């Protein structure tokens, strides 16, 4: 062992205490970045986005080659679905107009489904993949706020967990955070079944939809979408598909394994969804133990009447 003088030893001890204090400080408050943190994040983010551009370009070339190789098969499959699609399109159009008319009839303008999309590029992914996290090139300067939903064209992938002026961090759905829940529903034929996406199964790499009422029926293959009832996310963002239904750990409620529809391994372009209707962020935001509902009614009386 190297020879320690008492001076060095004291320095080492003080260093250790400082370190533990720093770790516990940053573990406690993980939703707001301090000013020096923000500056470092923005600077590194800028450099990172410059590096990410050629890297994305190269991976795009590989993806293009890959899709070129499977073109024939895909074309065959798509042709079969084309006729189906035309019928579906017509049906969607009639439903849309009907929905609009009905909405005018009941004087309800805003819906949980409405959101303003904000397009962002992934500039980095946490290299030590302990915590599933990606970093985007849009921040508060572009209108990103904490807890907004983040999705790809295929489905929901996570929510904004931290913002700085020019970058934002996304906590992906595959998270061990016990406070990370997404209010979701199963789109059944007749009735929607509600539940919460809570955690994931490590071995199967699938999300868990928990707290489903045991009297309700959930079938394999049904689609899971966000319900918008959590107060933050817009309604109707696709999450995945049910692959298995079992009972919960305590046998009181049902639990479903959900295969996410989005591809989590190669994320490049994502959409940040800010929902149009007023959002209530409860304990996810700064409103822990605050009477949020009354406050909202006071401050936005007009919107309250609309509902």
């Amino acid at each position, binding site marked *: 062992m190297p020879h320690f003088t008492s001076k060095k030893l004291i320095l080492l001890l003080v260093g250790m205490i400082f370190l533990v204090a720093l770790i516990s400080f940053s573990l406690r408050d993980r939703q707001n970045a301090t000013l020096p943190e923000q500056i*470092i994040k923005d600077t590194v983010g800028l450099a990172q986005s410059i590096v*990410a551009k050629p890297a994305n370009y190269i*991976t795009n070339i590989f993806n293009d080659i890959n899709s070129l190789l499977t073109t024939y098969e895909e074309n065959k499959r798509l042709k079969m679905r084309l006729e189906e699609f035309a019928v579906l399109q017509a049906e969607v159009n009639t439903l849309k107009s009907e929905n609009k008319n009905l909405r005018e009839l009941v004087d309800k303008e805003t819906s949980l489904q409405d959101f303003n999309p904000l397009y962002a590029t992934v500039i*980095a992914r*946490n*290299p030590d993949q302990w915590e599933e996290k990606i970093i985007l090139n849009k921040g508060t300067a572009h209108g990103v706020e904490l807890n907004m939903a983040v999705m790809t064209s295929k489905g929901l992938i996570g929510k904004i967990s931290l913002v700085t002026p020019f970058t934002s961090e996304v906590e992906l759905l595959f998270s061990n955070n016990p406070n990370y829940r997404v209010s979701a529903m199963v789109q059944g034929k007749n009735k929607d079944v509600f539940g919460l996406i809570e955690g994931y199964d490590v071995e199967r790499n699938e999300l868990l939809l928990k707290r489903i009422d045991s009297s309700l029926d959930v079938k394999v293959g049904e689609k899971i979408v966000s319900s918008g009832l959590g107060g933050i996310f817009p309604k109707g963002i696709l999450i995945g598909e049910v692959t298995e239904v079992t009972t919960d750990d305590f046998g009181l409620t049902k639990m479903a394994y959900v295969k996410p529809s989005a591809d989590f391994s190669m994320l490049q372009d994502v959409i940040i969804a800010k929902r149009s209707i007023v959002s209530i962020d409860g304990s996810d935001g700064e409103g822990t133990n605050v009477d949020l509902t009354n406050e909202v009614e006071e401050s936005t009386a007009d919107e309250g009447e609309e509902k």
Partner: protein
Amino acid sequence: MIRFLIPFVAVVLFLLEPVFALFSPITFGDQTVFLVPRFVILYLIFISIYYNRGRAILYGLFFGLLYDVFYIDIIGLYSFLYPLVCFVAGYAVKFIHQHLSVTTILSVLLVGLMEILLYYFFFFINLTSIPFTDFLSNRLLPTIIANLLFLIMLGWAFKYLINARVLQRADDIS
């Protein structure tokens, strides 16, 4: 010129890490394998062995801090581990033969050790719940193999660069 090349290479490696992380996780059949790029620390270990231990620890502190703030949001984790690994590498070099193959194996082993420490830390704060055997087969071994490949490809370049700097410095002094 070479004087600035050494920190510059470290910065480039730091920025390349997340780009390579985008390829992970890879699925082989029914197994999901995580590859963690550890380019910066491998480079710093080389600096520590072939150049200057104090310098390596200083760089380790700097890049560790950047890593913590930008990716992990737990300040003090990597900014402790990076200098520690550099220190151990600089200490171990007195007992080993400084051949490239030996240092390559030593660096990869140190990175493996760091992974294990990180696993226990994240297990302790409940960020992960995977058992140690899964960690060993799905994360540690693939990571070690991937980083070993990286070092086999670029280790000689690191050594060449650092040696050039050492020679230049010797020239400056004399």
